[in-house]
């Protein structure tokens, strides 16, 4: 079952944080179609968050077609956002980890690594469109 959390430092509305956490879990394959989301009561009681905020997040997921409420049963995942299979995902992640080790050995810190990632992504997408 998905563990929600709130991060006050992001400045993002709490309901959007819940939506983003579901989407991230869908992209990473942690959540699959048919999986049940925790009930509003469970989320409110565990995260200490307004139940209306949880309802709003679930309504947003329903509006986007990612989840659907079944009366009396709860809210269930309708469709996946993962773009690759779990094994392909694992392979990509291992390669990235190897690259990160190399980047650290070369002396890059977290900010430096993110700069390289962003810059590479920008130039790669520029080449694609060229």
């Amino acid at each position, binding site marked *: 079952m998905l563990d929600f959390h709130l991060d*006050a430092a992001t400045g993002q509305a709490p309901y959007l944080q819940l939506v983003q956490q579901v989407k991230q879990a869908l992209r990473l394959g942690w959540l699959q179609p048919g999986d049940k989301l925790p009930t509003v*009561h469970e989320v409110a009681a565990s995260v*200490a968050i*307004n*139940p209306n905020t949880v309802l709003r997040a679930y309504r947003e997921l329903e509006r986007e077609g990612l989840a659907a409420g079944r009366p009396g049963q709860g809210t269930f995942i309708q469709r996946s956002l993962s773009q690759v299979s779990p094994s392909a995902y694992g392979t990509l992640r291992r390669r990235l980890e190897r690259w990160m080790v190399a980047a650290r050995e070369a002396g890059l810190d977290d900010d430096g690594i993110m700069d390289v990632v962003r810059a590479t992504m920008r130039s790669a997408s520029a080449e694609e469109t060229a």
Partner: protein
Amino acid sequence: MSVEAVGVGRRYGRFWALRDLTLQLPAGSITAVVGPNGAGKTTLLNLLGGLLPPSEGELSVVGQRPGNDPGFLAKVGFVAQDCPLYNEFTAEDLLRFGRQLNPKWDDALARDRLDAANVPLRRRAGRLSGGQKAQVALALAVAKRPEMLVLDEPLASLDPLARREFLQSLMAIAASAEITVVMSSHLVGELARVCDHLVVISGGHVLIAGELDQVVDEHRWVTGPSADMATLPDAVDVVAESQHDRHSRKLVRSPGPLLNPALTVSPADLEDIVLAYLEHVPAREPAPAVVR
């Protein structure tokens, strides 16, 4: 509406502890009443709980005029500051009294709550931790199945872990029953995630009252060259400003977006907004006399 107040004020002798309170809180809402010490928070909560009559204005709570009659008191659960309990009695004793005094008493609900919060039922209240006492006071207030819960500074004397546990209990209650909650605090941060309505008071006056998301959406930081900043649209209220050599920065309240491209607009967080209002409080009239 669970709460409707029009021009409500409360006076102690010549001193107005609360004045010009006009407020609407819908049924099922969870409201934070925020302000510094002595702002009038406790007076407001005592008015809502029927512990004090207003000196002026019209006040309706859960559809009736608050007062000391059994019909009203059954509908409103009140937890006073520091959760006073009779120290010699155990939670078990207190549940028994509650059962005898309240026709709609839900014993199973109270026991579930105390069980979930790991409160020992046979220990005398005087020997419970602050967090456990707060949980007992909350369970007793909820077990009479009120339409509204009024909590005066429920978190003030609790450590961070007990605060979290108290809010978890409160949100479990809010999720399982149609109940309106009004709670006060001198800090807004810890209540932001649990509340959907906000009332900020200071010096006996309401500075902000409204839906939390709307309050946050309507306020923003604007930074820009002083010349452009001097000519903001009429609909924009300036809450706070800091002037520098060539640029200035203002916290503004504006119902719509600001379209001047010379200005940099960024979202304001709730704590910034509340503090900005509290720093610019109108002077209190007349001078504070003896309170309470």
